[in-house]
């Protein structure tokens, strides 16, 4: 069983798109986009490139659903890591720290 044999033309097409997207992301960096939006644009292009590599070069487009679950699970775990971490980091300043304790009369020990 040799698996699905992908036509050579497909590989070259994907290669050309990947090089094109690399040129695009480099060009976009030379244009002024207000931060942090420049990072989001760069990440969007990177996600497109990674998806093409995964689907075609790594044959996920031609594989069974079982393997696809493993692939998705890997990235889903990464999403959990990033989301839960950021849910802490990004929300710390939402509620100002309490100052109530400062106003109460403190009885000094002894």
């Amino acid at each position: 069983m040799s698996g699905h044999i992908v036509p050579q033309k497909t590989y070259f097409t994907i290669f050309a798109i990947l090089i094109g997207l690399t040129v695009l992301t480099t060009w976009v960096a030379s244009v002024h986009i207000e931060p942090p939006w420049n990072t989001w644009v760069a990440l969007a292009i990177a996600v497109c490139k990674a998806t093409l590599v995964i689907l075609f070069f790594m044959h996920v487009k031609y594989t069974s659903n079982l393997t696809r679950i493993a692939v998705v699970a890997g990235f889903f775990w990464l999403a959990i890591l990033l989301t839960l971490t950021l849910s802490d980091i990004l929300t710390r300043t939402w509620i100002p720290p309490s100052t109530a304790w400062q106003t109460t009369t403190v009885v000094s020990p002894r």
Partner: protein
Amino acid sequence: MSEHQATSGVLDPLAHQFDDLEQQHEASYFGMWIFLATEIMFFGGMFAGYTIYRHEYFSAFEAGSRLLDWRFGAANTAVLICSSLTMALAVRAAQMGQRKALITFLLLTIVLGMAFLGIKFTFEWTRDWHEHIVPGINFAPQGETLKQLQDAKVALPHVELFMFFYFAMTGFHALHMIVGIGLLTVLTIMANQGRFSPQRFNPVEGSGLYWHFVDIVWIFLFPLLYLIGGTH
């Protein structure tokens, strides 16, 4: 059939624990993806750390990014994408049982991988050393570089932290490249001995998956390290 081959001394493409070649292929491919999931978590931890400090020290990371030469990053991205193409073609050659083509594409991939490491170590990291932007051991920006950072009004320790992320992430990426080149060297020797066939090429495919994964890591590292400060 397999019983006959096993006793006749010819290498049986089917290991005895599998029902058939399709199951064997599926298991190998699936297992490699499970390993890659752990690799996603390995690099994911560093990406998460990067994200936190990118948020905390926003402009320092942009200023740090401008200290790197994006042209090296872009050149290396192109080299890696080329190597991914030759790797994909190597797997295809193995699937079709073309031994000569398989060896040629494996060697091409090795050469491109070495070109990547060559650009990174000899040009890029040497330049970083001379610019005094290597964190921990040689971090003391001077002249133009220092002025650039002062104009951006960023704290030097925050820029140094960016450089830590840069060296840790590209360093671990380079380590993966070295491991990949080692794997491909073994594959080339095995291919030369005629150990692969359209029935059994799983090592080639598995190593290919690993190589493409390392490429994907770089696809994210390139913009996040070299381009966030803009190239204008």
